[in-house]
């Protein structure tokens, strides 16, 4: 891909600056990977818009509930730990697949998906607990109805991404095990998973820690 080895450089007269070899991959980024990066950019903006809305309304509100007790924060911390661990498993899956170790890659992919499932289960338990306490998108026991709306829409959007990610990872695991998908596909699914993980690192402090019970 170096410019000097390009046969065109000698053919084109008076213009040998920046001759493009054509059809090869710039910076060795395959289309699928670039496509996923672009998707991540736009998805990050969607999350940003929702988080911006939350900040806008929270700042405008006269009061905002801080209902999360130590148990809730502990639960959310465990969720964070599980999600971060699954990202480590994802890194190991990508590494195994690039070294040609198919079985290890599939195992790590399944482990990653399992992390996602545990996260979802813990999260749904949390949701059910809050719903039991009377939290709704339009009402909650502590005043400021928007608390429930912001909580459910932000964490719900994230949970949807985790769930889609679990399905995506399992599809990749099965396909990679059957040699239908390449190393690039594993890596691209990893990009998505790390992104979902990263979004949680914003939601966890903004939703939970900023609303932890102070007394």
């Amino acid at each position, binding site marked *: 891909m170096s410019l000097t080895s390009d046969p065109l450089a000698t053919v084109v007269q*008076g213009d040998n600056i920046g001759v493009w070899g054509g*059809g090869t*991959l*710039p910076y060795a980024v395959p289309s699928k990977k670039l496509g996923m990066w672009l998707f991540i950019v*736009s998805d990050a*903006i969607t999350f940003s818009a929702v988080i911006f*809305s939350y900040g806008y309304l929270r700042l405008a509100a006269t009061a905002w509930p801080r209902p999360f007790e130590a148990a809730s924060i502990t639960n959310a911390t465990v969720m964070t730990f599980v999600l971060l661990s699954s990202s480590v498993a994802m890194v190991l899956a990508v590494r195994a697949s690039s070294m040609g170790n198919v079985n290890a890659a599939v195992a790590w992919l399944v482990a990653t998906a399992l992390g996602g499932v545990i996260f979802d289960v813990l999260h749904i338990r949390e949701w059910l607990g809050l719903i039991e306490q009377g939290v709704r*998108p339009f009402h909650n026991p502590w005043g400021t109805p*928007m608390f429930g709306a912001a909580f459910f829409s932000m964490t719900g959007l994230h949970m949807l991404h985790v769930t889609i990610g679990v399905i995506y990872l399992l599809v990749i695991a099965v396909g990679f095990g059957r040699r239908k998908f390449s190393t690039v596909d594993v890596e691209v699914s990893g990009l998505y998973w790390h992104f979902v993980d990263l979004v949680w690192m914003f939601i966890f402090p903004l939703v939970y820690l900023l609303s932890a019970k102070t007394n």
Partner: protein
Amino acid sequence: MAHMPTEAQVHQHTAPTGFIRKYIFSVDHKVIGKQYYFLAVFSVFVGMILSWLVRIHLVWPNAHIWGLNALSPAGAPGGVISPEYYLSLLTIHGTLMVFFVLTTAPQAGFGNYALPIQIGAEDMAFPVLNMLSFWVTFLALCALISSLFVGDGPPISGWTAYPPLSAVGRSAGPGQGIGQDLWGISIALFCAGSLLGALNFITTTVDLRCKGMTLMRMPLTCWAWLITAILSLLSFAVLFAACVLLILDRNAGTSFFLPSGLLVNGTLQNHAGGSPLLWQHLFWFFGHPEVYIAIVPGFGVISHVLSVFSRKPILGYKVIVACLLGIGFLSFTVWGHHMFLSGMSPYSGFLFSIPTLIITIPATIISLLWLGTVFGGRLRFTTCMMFALGFVSVFVTGGLGGMFLAQPSLDIFLHGTYFVVGHFHMVMGVAAIFGMFAGTYFWFPKMFGRMLNEGLGKVHFAITFIGVYCIFMPMHFIGLEGMPRRYSSFVNDLMQPLMPVHKFMTIAALITGASQFIFFFNLFWSMYKGPKASENPWESTTLEWTVPSPPPFDNFGGKHPVVYHDPYEYGNVQNGKDYVMQTDPAGQPARSQ
């Protein structure tokens, strides 16, 4: 890296044979481009009919309109449009035109068709995703159109769907029930389709250029599509989030966009804690880049066409690229100028006013470079060239109005009047549509293998060009007089003395609209009966003119083109030709780099 397959090999696929795989669920970018194009043609037709109804109602509010009674017995009892139904029609007109015409045809239509061929690729980077984005857009159109036929009609909240009106539901008025829900679903789907399309465009442009096609050798059309795709990627994501929140407000009881203590039709709404301004921020953060999503592909086509038919290299290729990038960047910093009237600190107003004025600089530079390209050229007055020159005219005329509106103090008076209606129709609507006409007359031979009728085309141009000035220039003046927009009628009003101007505009709109049937006829008649087009009827240099009209399934018949020249090598006569194809290794460039 030598063992790595090239992207061209990765993306190879064979031509389908069945009718459905070939024409309906096709993955061929050429078929998808045409599908988008005809989706836009359908939408522009419906949108135009709606604008006729709107114009007729303004001038003859008691007119009985044939067939309207059957479409909406509640909205138009006896065929007479009610004030609410006027707003419904206005909403669908705006939504159709902005999303399904201005966003669809110039980018997804022509871009899909021409971008891969112009950069020497066999198809888009993700053909299946491409098909998916078309069908998602198609579903979005179905959802929007169906609002005309269900419940009490389409929403009355306009194409911007401002809350509280759009968020409180049925009690807010006719169309605010199922109609507004369908609007929200339609636009959310449209966002998803546009996002998929945008990432496909960017990846294609980055990865699939053929040998020798450096970024600075791409036709300006490709630059315009690339920049538009980046704008779409970054802005539709925000509108998507806003639509989701709006749908939640309407159906899950949340109050993102609804404040407390809201009285609607005498009923206290059970909402609290939200802000209608939040919607405006989210909407216009999308909405202003959207203006450029509509017009930048037009910039590309016009730059391209002016160079071809002036037989001169485009003046300042690199400057135009830089200006397009500048416009793209600045378009994300000016959304607040749509909200001066909504109440804003004068400091914020100032902050949004300055980049708004700065954005006129790259736009002006591009316009002057167009004039410089045409100046001293050996002009060929094809219909396509006329629409390109018409584009420059309407864009500059419309853009001048923007200078007034960028001043917060003037905007507070003008924003709620017909001045704004005239301004954005001229600069965004008509200009973008002229870009689409130019694109149609230019690429039709390649797309359908036949020529459009030039005589009909020139008649179409003449009526349309004079017509749009007759419709939209007076709007500026009645706006200065203070005539408010979105009012359904001005009978027995202090605005009564201006009614003759409205009548003039309505008659001009009816005539201009009728002249579009010349275009529709030309389009469909020439598709089957027009004279056969040669490979390169316009003596143009870019890659799409090196392949047969229409091109084979893989565009280049298994060959891989190699590019040796800039895209606009015109005017240097050699071997009896005044142009050098991009793929011609022997040709001498018109001027040195």
